[in-house]
């Protein structure tokens, strides 16, 4: 249990996906104008990453490794993610129209969020695989995925909060738009360094 907590905290804060590994920057910079939309995006990402880490972990362990096809992992994983996003979209549309409405266009866009593919590939790279740790591999992969997505959500919500505030500030002309957002991200990354002593 303690190890799972360590993985969760490590994925969410210490190795924050956006601020220290640079995954998922497109939505981080693009969809962080308002806290509300940022929160919806975060929720959608948590949903998709958690499920896809589980499914990808199973496929890797029982199909790719079994038939020695590890070199196909990139192709297989991206297809799994794309199919899964589609599936989640159809399921939500039927089961919970409210949530589907709230997530809107952000749901299909998650396919190209490199955080999803990044986490899934990392799970394999860090050897959270069946041959090494048995069924625990599935659990650890899911916890790692969930933690990473949580880190993404925290970062994007903080960013949206800051951007809502600086929207009315008097920013020098060359720094308006992307540069000021990147500067904010820079300061956030320095702040997140503070977590590095945690584990």
């Amino acid at each position, binding site marked *: 249990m303690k190890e799972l907590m360590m993985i969760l905290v490590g994925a969410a804060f210490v190795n924050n996906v956006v601020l220290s590994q640079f995954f998922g920057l497109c939505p981080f910079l693009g969809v962080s104008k308002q806290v509300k939309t940022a929160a919806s995006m975060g929720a959608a990402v948590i949903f998709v990453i958690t499920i896809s880490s589980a499914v990808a972990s199973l496929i890797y362990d029982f199909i790719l490794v079994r038939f020695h096809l590890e070199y*196909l*992992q990139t192709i297989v994983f991206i297809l799994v993610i794309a199919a899964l996003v589609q599936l989640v979209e159809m399921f939500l549309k039927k089961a919970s129209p409210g949530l589907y409405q709230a997530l809107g266009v952000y749901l299909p866009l998650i396919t190209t969020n*490199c955080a999803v593919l990044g986490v899934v*590939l990392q799970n394999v790279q860090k050897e959270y695989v069946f041959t090494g740790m048995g069924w625990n591999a599935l659990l650890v992969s899911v916890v790692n995925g969930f933690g990473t997505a949580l880190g993404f959500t925290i970062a994007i919500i903080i960013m949206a909060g800051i951007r809502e505030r600086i929207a009315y500030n008097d920013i020098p*002309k060359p720094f308006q738009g992307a540069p000021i957002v990147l500067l904010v991200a820079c300061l956030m990354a320095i702040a997140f360094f503070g977590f590095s002593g945690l584990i």
Partner: protein
Amino acid sequence: MNGCLERLYNGIVKENPTFILMLGMCPTLAVTTSAFNGLGMGLSTMAVLVVSNLIISILRNVIPDRVRIPAYIVIVASLVTVVQLLIQAYIPELYDALGIYIPLIVVNCIILGRAEAYASKNPPLLAAFDGIGMGLGFSIALACMGFFRELIGAGTVFSGTPFAYSLPEVYEPVSIFVLAPGAFLVLALIIAFLNAMNIENNGRKKVEGCDGACGNCGKVETCDKRRRSK
């Protein structure tokens, strides 16, 4: 031939994928800890981009419209796997440095973006040149970021290659520039610098007799300032 040159200019300067369009941010920030890594990433992406643009352009009338995105993703993912295996075999040091970011070329928005916006509507030769232009623009941007980060953060340039250069020992490296915050900082400053240049140019190109209010001006069509704000 003019069309091809125009594509190159477009990719490198006018619609530079990194500095103007802000696409493919993940590799831009993650692997530019040194000029060599940045250039390596840029050229690998360019290789994938040129071939994928070519293939997609050749198949543009064959792929049904409804399944085009999955088809593009499969083409790109196969090419990325090929490039990954080639780098692993022939440039192992680059493979170790870039690590997980090589398979992540699949989700680089530049590649799918060019496939969707250009290659799927244009003939193969132009599409290939579009890929070369965009790829060069991306490589130059990455090498440029890597150059500054390595120079300030480690006091060296192109270390580990025959062109290695290092600053005199007196220089104390500012190591935060090779860490995560430095990536955001350098990109922010480069874009702000380009913006500042742009603003200055716009001011200079003002049409004679312009009072800043475009409303009733007869020169609206030729005015640079007006066109930009549209």
